[in-house]
């Protein structure tokens, strides 16, 4: 579904991604783990078009998307949940969700958007009672739910998640991960970036370990979980 070949990205003189190649088969859940500053966010931003200065090839369902702007990429069905939620804090929860559907929002699609909302409320029942609250006043966990819900409103086929568990209490982390798993089971392809390596490797099928901008190790998550180096560097000695 998505294929990166030899992708390089840089901020001025700093090269943040070096010759990164990865493959995300349709329907799969792939995870990327790595230390702070390894380039995980840069990788997602390169896919979603937020970083324009990059080389290499990114193909999505057979078409080259590496030179497309974010607006085009969303419309193709790739949606990113950015690091740190990035909600429209001055707007209500429902406005945030409507803006998630911005690309197909019109009077004609009202029914469709409503159906989509009902589906979202089934996934996050809590959001239904918060629709009129300003997004900026929600708790961290609720904000993360809105961030994911907003990304889902655009009807993505591929969902990019950047550290959805960041700053959440363990119980909420489990809840969010359960939702991600469920979305994947229902057919959404997922690329999950996580600091919480153990949890990520447990729910994903295939994983990549990013170190200073390049792929250090890759493989089925079962192998990574038992890999000496991965255990030592990312899972804590046990």
């Amino acid at each position, binding site marked *: 579904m998505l294929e990166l070949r030899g992708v390089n990205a840089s901020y001025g003189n700093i090269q943040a991604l070096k010759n990164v190649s990865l493959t995300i088969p349709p329907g799969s859940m792939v995870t990327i783990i790595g230390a702070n500053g390894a380039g995980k966010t840069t990788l997602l931003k390169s896919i979603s*078009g937020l970083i324009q200065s990059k080389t290499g090839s990114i193909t999505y369902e057979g078409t080259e998307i590496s030179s497309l*702007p974010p607006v085009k990429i969303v419309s193709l069905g790739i*949606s990113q949940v*950015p690091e740190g939620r990035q909600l429209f804090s*001055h707007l209500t929860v429902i406005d945030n969700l*409507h803006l998630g559907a*911005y*690309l197909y*929002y019109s009077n004609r699609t009202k029914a469709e958007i409503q159906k989509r909302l009902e589906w979202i409320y089934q996934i996050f029942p809590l959001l239904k009672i918060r629709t009129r609250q300003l997004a900026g006043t929600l708790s961290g966990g609720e904000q993360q739910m809105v961030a994911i819900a907003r*990304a889902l409103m655009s009807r993505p086929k591929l969902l990019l998640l950047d550290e959805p568990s960041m700053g959440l209490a363990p119980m909420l982390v489990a809840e969010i991960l359960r939702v991600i798993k469920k979305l994947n089971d229902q057919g959404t392809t997922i690329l999950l970036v996580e600091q919480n390596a153990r949890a990520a490797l447990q729910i994903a099928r295939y994983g990549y370990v990013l170190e200073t901008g390049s792929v250090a190790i890759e493989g089925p998550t079962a192998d990574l979980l038992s890999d000496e180096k991965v255990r030592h560097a990312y899972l804590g000695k046990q």
Partner: protein
Amino acid sequence: MDLQGQIIQYLATGLTLGSIYAMVGLGFTIIYNATGIINLAQGEFVMFGGLIMVFFTTTLGLPLFLSFFITLALTTGIGMLYERLFIHHPSKTAPLMTLLIITVAVSIFFRGIAMFIWGKEPYSLPHFSSPEPIIIGGAAILPQVFWILGLSLLAVILMNIFFNRTITGKAMSACAVNRVAASLVGIDVSKMVLLSFALSATLGALAGASITPIALMEYDRGPMLALKGFCAAVLGGLGFGTGAVVAGFLLGLIESFTTGFISSAFKEATALIILILVLFIKPSGIFGSAEVGKIKKI
């Protein structure tokens, strides 16, 4: 004129001035919210509104209302051209300060063009309806005053509906609050910036075209209007449209009453004195709360 008549007279003048300041202030707010830029060429939109209207009504002899709409459309076009030519490319890399200086340059450029076309003398326009004053409570009020008030009120209401009720309006405010998130949901940020310049220019043109029949218009009226509008925008808590509108009306009223009861020598100074006082006491503006900086709302 007795005291009551005087008060009503000053009230009418104050509201008239106020509605102009309110619209210029709202124009500032719209561009500021979408881009973070203080557009110092805001007053030139008003000037163009007046002078282009003069061209179509007086020079070409077109009917008043036809030229009114042509004027709005043309000035809006000028605002869009301005954004595409001078803001669009620099804004990708240049810091805000550079963009601010570009707006100063553009305002001088616009004044130059206007002087080249219309010269330095002030122009007048026919009133939208009868130029005969209506006597209300001992004061003589020109019907044009009601046109100005009505049109600006209409504009303010339409802007409010746009920003609070339509998806495009919300998308525009979303761009202001979080550009990255806005582009991630598929909002074309560059289009929204263009739209903000278009709306600001329309508001300016509306103010200019409606005030020229009673206040005349000349090529260099812009800076003073921009200054007053800027005061209104800042007093209203920069970035808060309704605040700018209310502050604009307050400024107009205060200016009119100080001119009437104290001395016309203070006319131009009042707005600045109030601005300095308010910023001294409450730097976030009269209506700005501590959160307005973070949670912007139009």
